C-alpha cells in the first residue's frame, strides 16, 4: 500500500516526534503534578516525603490562595468579555471604512502593542503610571482632575493590570475578527441593509453567525491569555501587590514554587487552575459551540 496515501509505518514515523514531545513534556508533568500534590519537598536534602492531604489543607487555609482565586475569577469576568467585544467593534469599524487609505494605518496602530512582550508591556507603562510625576497624572491634573496612585493604590491596581493586559492583547483578536468579517459576502450585508435592518441587527443576524467559528476560537484562546500570560504584567507592574490585590493563581503558584520552594502546595494551586480551565473550556464547548455554525 504505497499509493497516494502513506503506509502505517511511515505515518507513525512522521507523527512520533510530535507525539512523544507532547507526551513527555505536557502529559507527563500533569500526571506528576497530581503526585507532587501529596508530597513534601525538602530543599536541603532534595528529598520527598509523603504528606497526605497536608498540602491541600495548607492551600485551602492560606488567605493568599483565596484572594488569588477570587482575582483570577475577576480577571476572567472583566477581560474575557472586553477582549472579545471591543476588538469586534473595532473590526466592524475597520470594515465599514475598508478601502480608505487610513484603514491600514488604524490597523497597524491598533495591532502594534501585540508585538510587545507581557513583561515589557508592564515596563512600558511603569513610568506613565508613576504616581509622583507620571504622564497619566500630568494629564489628569491638566484637565483639572485629582491625580491617582494607579498600580500602587489598593483599589485601582487590579483595574490598572486589566487595562495594561487589554492594551497588550486585544490586537490579536482584532486581526482574527477582521479576517473573519472580511470573508462575509458584501451582497448579503447590503441586502439586509436594503431590507431595513439596522447596524446592530445586521451584526447579530449576519456577522456573528457567519463568523462564529472564529468567535469560538477567540473565546477559548482569550481565556488562556487571561489566566496565564497576565503573570508577566503582574510581576513587573505590581509584584502581586499592593496587599495581594492583583495576584492570581499562576502568580501564586510561581511564588510558592520558586520563592518558597513549596512544590507540593504549588502543585495543588496548579491543579486548581487546571480544574478551572477545564471547567471553563467545558462550559464553552457545551453552551457556546452548539451555536457555532460551521460553513
Amino acid at each position, binding site marked *: *500500500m*504505497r499509493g*497516494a*496515501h*502513506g*503506509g502505517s509505518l511511515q*505515518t*507513525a514515523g*512522521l*507523527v512520533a516526534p*510530535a*507525539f512523544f*514531545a*507532547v*507526551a513527555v*513534556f*505536557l*502529559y507527563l*508533568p*500533569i500526571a506528576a503534578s497530581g503526585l*507532587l500534590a501529596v508530597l513534601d*519537598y525538602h530543599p536541603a536534602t532534595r528529598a520527598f516525603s509523603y504528606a497526605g492531604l497536608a498540602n491541600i489543607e495548607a492551600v485551602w487555609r492560606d488567605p493568599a490562595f483565596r484572594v488569588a482565586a477570587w482575582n483570577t475569577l475577576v480577571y476572567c469576568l472583566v477581560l474575557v468579555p472586553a477582549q472579545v467585544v471591543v476588538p469586534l467593534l473595532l473590526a466592524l*469599524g*475597520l470594515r*465599514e*471604512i475598508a478601502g480608505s487609505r*487610513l484603514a491600514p494605518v*488604524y490597523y497597524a496602530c*491598533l495591532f*502594534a*502593542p501585540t*508585538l*510587545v*512582550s507581557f*513583561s*515589557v508591556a*508592564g*515596563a*512600558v507603562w*511603569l513610568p506613565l503610571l*508613576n504616581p509622583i*510625576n*507620571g*504622564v497619566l497624572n500630568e494629564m489628569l491634573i491638566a484637565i483639572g482632575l485629582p491625580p491617582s496612585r494607579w498600580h500602587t493604590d489598593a483599589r485601582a491596581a487590579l483595574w490598572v493590570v486589566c487595562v495594561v493586559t487589554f*492594551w497588550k492583547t486585544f490586537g490579536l483578536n482584532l486581526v482574527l475578527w477582521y*479576517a473573519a468579517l*472580511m*470573508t462575509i459576502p458584501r451582497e448579503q450585508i447590503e441586502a439586509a441593509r436594503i431590507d431595513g435592518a439596522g447596524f446592530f441587527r445586521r451584526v447579530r443576524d449576519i456577522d456573528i453567525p457567519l463568523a462564529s467559528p*472564529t468567535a469560538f476560537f477567540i473565546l477559548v484562546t482569550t481565556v*488562556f491569555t487571561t489566566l496565564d*500570560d497576565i503573570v*508577566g504584567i503582574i*510581576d*513587573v507592574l505590581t509584584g502581586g501587590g499592593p496587599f495581594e490585590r492583583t495576584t492570581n493563581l*499562576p502568580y501564586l503558584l510561581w511564588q510558592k*514554587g*520558586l520563592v518558597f520552594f513549596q512544590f507540593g502546595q504549588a502543585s495543588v494551586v*496548579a491543579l486548581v*487552575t487546571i480544574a478551572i480551565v*477545564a471547567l471553563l473550556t467545558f462550559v464553552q464547548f457545551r453552551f457556546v459551540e452548539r451555536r457555532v455554525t460551521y460553513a
Partner: protein
Amino acid sequence: MREVAAAERRRRTARLLVHGALAIASAATLFPLVWMLAAAFTPNDLILARPFRLWPEQATLANFAAASEAYPIWRWLWNSLLAAAAVTAGKLALSLPAAYAFARGRHRWRDAAFGFVIVTMAFPTVMVIVPTYLAVVRLGLVDTLPALIVPSIPYIGFYVFFFRQAMKALPPEMFEAASLDGAGFLRQFVDIALPNVAHVVPALAAFAFLGAWNIFLWGQLTLASVENKTLAVGVALFSDIEGAQSSWGPLMAVNSLAILPVLVVFLVARRSIERAFANR
C-alpha cells in the same frame, strides 16, 4: 431621489464618526509606544523634569549606554534571538511532518493521536511548570538556555491543527499525480505538501517567534544568573532594581530593544499572515 440622497448623507456621517472613533482608539493605543521611543532617546534628567513628550529631545544614545553598563543587555538580546529562533525551528520541525501524516497518512490510531496532540492547545503552561522545573534541577540544567528552549517547544497543538487544515485543503490530484510519477509518501511530503503550504509557514513562524520571545515565567525560573537572561526576563530585573524607578530612559531603551526584532519579524511575515488568516 431625495431619500437616496439623505441615506447617502447619513452613511457619510456614519463613516466620519467611525473614522473619528478609530483615530482616537489608534492614538490612545499607540501613545505608550511613542512615549517609550521618545524617552529611549531623550536624556534621563529631561524625562524626569518633564515626562510628557512625543518626540526625543536633545536626541542621544546615552540611555542605551547606561543600560548596557548596568546589565548585559546585548547578551540578553542575543539570548532572546537564539531562544526564539530555536523554539520556532523546533515547533516547525515537529509540527509540519506530523500535520502531513495526520492529513494524508493511514494508521488505525491516526485520529486518536491527532486528538491527543491538539488537545494540548488547551493546556495552560502553569500546569506543567513545577514538575518540569524539578526535572531540570535534577538534570543539572538550571541556568542554561536549553532548559528554557526545550520544554517550550512541545506547545504545538495549534500548529499541527493549522498545518493539517492547510494540507487537507490541497487538491488530492496533486498527490496522486506525484504518486503516479513514482514519488513515495515521504517524497510527496517534501515535493508537494511542503512547497504548497510554504506561504503560510512564515505566519506561524512569526507567532512562534513572538511566543518564545515573550516567555517570562519559565525564564524567571530557569535563567538564574544575570548574563543568561533573555530580554523579556531581564526587563523585570531592570525595573525592579531601580527601586524608585528613576532611570526611565535606560529602561525605555531596553524596552525598545526588546520590541525591535519582533517588529522586523512581523513586517517580513506580513503578507504571509494576511494569507494565513484570510480564509479561516
